[in-house]
């Protein structure tokens, strides 16, 4: 990992990074603590429940593979939202970008079935990336040209995108059998090879790792990333320093959309093998939490994605083993968000008190 290199070149970032890591870890522990109280209230043993959760998420090759598989789209959406956050904007539209990207990739895969894999896979990736990027860019243009708040537009664009995909899956792209709102199955050459034999984990996870590393390099080792971070912290200072704030902000929207589109692609080729109506159980929204918990740091995002994936995958094992409903994991996810955000509030309160009372 290139973190050690970053630590040499930017110790302050490393120190700040470790403080952020502690704060995220604290948020997770507090959430699990409150979760334990709920489990006791339910009448079960937190130890048994959490042991089952851990076992279900990471206890065997297969459960580990399932967790990592689930972490792939979360990593991509988490990175998508991270890029936007770093530029000082919000992309709450990852969900819609994911659906459109997935649909575009599937369409290419079905339209060109005879293409050999080394050509077909890049073509599908490109389709997902371009479509996701354009959908995100739309929100960016609305913001920069008309001052439309991207918090609103990205969420609204989600509905348009997801309902449009529903239309496609019930109309032009529907499977020939014509029963379910889904496309035909993709041919074998459109899929990824398995990573662990006998499991569903595929080479897409390597692409997720690659995206994490590339994002890290982009943020901390390129002048684009430097400017992006400056804009996110103080756009006026960035303008005054001569940066092309509009272009860099738009590029952040674009890249955010690319990453969200790829999340959809990964889910299609890695899990469903076709485009379906309920492709995503809210990966685009969970990505927001992943980005927050990961402190908008690419490696942090990866860790947070694996954690949340583990919670989701292990939840059913927990339910079987201890009777605690698997929805508890959803509560824990919510609590993590509260504590991560609450951590910031603690800082605000402390700063306020420090101002009042030196």
């Amino acid at each position: 990992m290139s973190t050690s290199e970053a630590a040499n070149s930017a110790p302050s970032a490393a120190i700040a990074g470790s403080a952020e890591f502690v704060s995220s870890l604290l948020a997770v522990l507090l959430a699990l603590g409150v979760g334990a109280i709920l489990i006791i209230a339910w009448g079960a043993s937190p130890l048994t429940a959490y042991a089952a959760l851990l076992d279900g998420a990471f206890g065997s090759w297969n459960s580990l593979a399932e967790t990592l598989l689930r972490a792939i789209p979360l990593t991509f959406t988490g990175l998508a939202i991270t890029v936007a956050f770093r530029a000082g904007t919000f992309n709450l539209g990852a969900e819609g970008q994911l659906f459109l990207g997935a649909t575009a990739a599937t369409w290419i895969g079905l339209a060109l079935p005879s293409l050999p894999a080394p050509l077909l896979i890049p073509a599908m990736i490109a389709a997902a990336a371009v479509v996701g990027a354009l959908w995100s860019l739309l929100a960016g243009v609305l913001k920069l040209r008309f001052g439309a708040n991207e918090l609103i537009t990205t969420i609204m664009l989600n509905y348009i995108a997801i309902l449009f995909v529903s239309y496609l899956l019930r109309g032009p792209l529907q499977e020939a059998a014509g029963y379910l709102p889904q496309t035909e199955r993709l041919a074998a050459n459109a899929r990824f090879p398995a990573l662990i034999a006998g499991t569903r984990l595929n080479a897409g996870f390597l692409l997720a790792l690659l995206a994490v590393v590339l994002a890290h390099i982009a943020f901390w080792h390129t002048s684009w990333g430097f400017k992006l971070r400056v804009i996110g912290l103080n756009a006026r200072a960035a303008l005054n320093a001569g940066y092309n704030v509009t272009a860099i902000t738009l590029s952040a929207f674009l890249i955010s959309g690319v990453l969200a589109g790829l999340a959809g692609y990964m889910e299609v080729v890695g899990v469903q093998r076709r485009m379906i109506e309920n492709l995503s159980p809210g990966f685009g929204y969970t990505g927001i939490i992943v980005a927050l918990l990961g402190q908008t740091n690419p490696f942090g995002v990866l860790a947070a994605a694996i954690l949340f994936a583990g919670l989701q995958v292990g939840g059913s094992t927990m339910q079987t083993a201890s009777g605690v409903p698997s929805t508890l994991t959803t509560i824990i996810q919510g609590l993590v968000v509260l504590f991560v955000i609450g951590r910031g509030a603690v800082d605000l309160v402390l700063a306020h008190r420090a101002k009042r009372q030196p």
Partner: protein
Amino acid sequence: MSDSIGTEPAPLVLRRVTVRFGSFTANDAIDFSVGRGEIHALLGENGAGKTTLMRVVAGLLVPQDGTIQIDGRVVRLTSPLDAAAHGIGMVHQHFMLISTLSVAQNVCVGIAKAGRLFPNLSQVARDLDEIGARYGLHVDPHALVGSLSVASQQRVEIVKALYRGARILVLDEPTAVLAPQEVEGLFRVLRMLAAAGTAIVFISHKLGEVMALSHRVSVLRDGRLVTTKATADTNPAELARLMIGEDLVLPQVDGKHASGPVAIETRSVHLRDEFGVPRLSDVSLAARSGEIVGVAGVDGNGQQQLAEILAGLQTPSSGSVIMTSPDGPIDVSHSGPGERIALGLSHIPEDRHRTALVDMSIADNAALDSIDRPPLARWGFLSHRAIRAFAARLIAANDVRCTGLDQPVMTLSGGNQQKVVLGRALAHSPRVIVAVQPTRGLDLGATVFVHRQLLAQCAAGAAIVLVSTELDEVLALSDRIVVMFAGRIVGSMTRAEVTLQRLGAMMTGQTA
């Protein structure tokens, strides 16, 4: 006039008040008092601890040590409401007014006396008229605060404090925002208030005003009380020495007029803000290589907008901005800061937190506007080693006091932050420098440093537009001085032609 009249205790007495921010002591065991009918001036350089002390009095800061007595009783002020309840009224440097409400509405915001839910505004208006008549403080109670001049808004603040029953009035640098003629008006009001028994604390760093107005003067330096004297027993030279602590000489230009080619100019620039209000009207200004053009004026008369138009942060509504490149003049009216920086422009903005600095390390801030220049970045990839070397040179050359390159820039003192901004702006031998209030908030040593740097750049051939509301600064540095009033340039003169009378007249809009 003195601490007490007879046995009556003084309205406000501070004993050994100590305020520490971390390891920094902003107020060190300060004794201070003001009597009934007394005007007590609190004098000190920026950063001497005046404002901190008054924040204690206003209930905004609780001191770690020491006591506050009101009318002889020890009180604990933990909020501005506490302070107001004890009869303390503050007139802050930045007014605490709501510009979309009327004067009467502003006065009764948040107080029960006027009726909490449905204030009796006509009664408030009558009360205000009465206060106005008594102290010569006339303001129209029904006027919208936003439509009033700065001087009138200040009167509203005073009236507001009096209406709320202030017997102790604290004014934080009240003359900073006023033209010379308006200062006289304020002084008349303050003298009448004192004559009627109000205790007044007058914070300033202007010696002339302190001598003219106050009965007693206390001098703060580096958080310590240096002396308290009857004003009659001292003189400006002594106060200046006490305030500064050593005899520093401001750099002086020789007044010879440089005559290089025009490096940047505006031609008939007009600017309307987002609400359509004209901010600049027909502004034509040219700065030649090797000269410093001082833009003087009372704060808020369009200087800020002019500077932003020069720097490229705002686009003029009409008119043009021309910069001279080696290939001839270029119209940059519609180019952003990036193009102008490429043509050799440097901007030292007024508000460094809003416009110049980013919550990152010193090294990153130092490299902020050089990040695309090799060797800091090549082919789009940063060289952290080159960035650190560049920043190390910058902080060494500008004597930035810090724990290291990785210290967050926001934890530096104001002076050291400004040195980072200045060093960055001057790092690449700019051809044009737009410097706005470059020494605001700096101590004298740092101010002299900034002035020397600007003079050196000027000698090296830069054209400098210096916007400042500190007349001393403008007079000390400028070859030519223009005065702005209400968005117009009302006068232009060389340093030799300047008299204080002329300058004062122009600053109030008379095109003498």
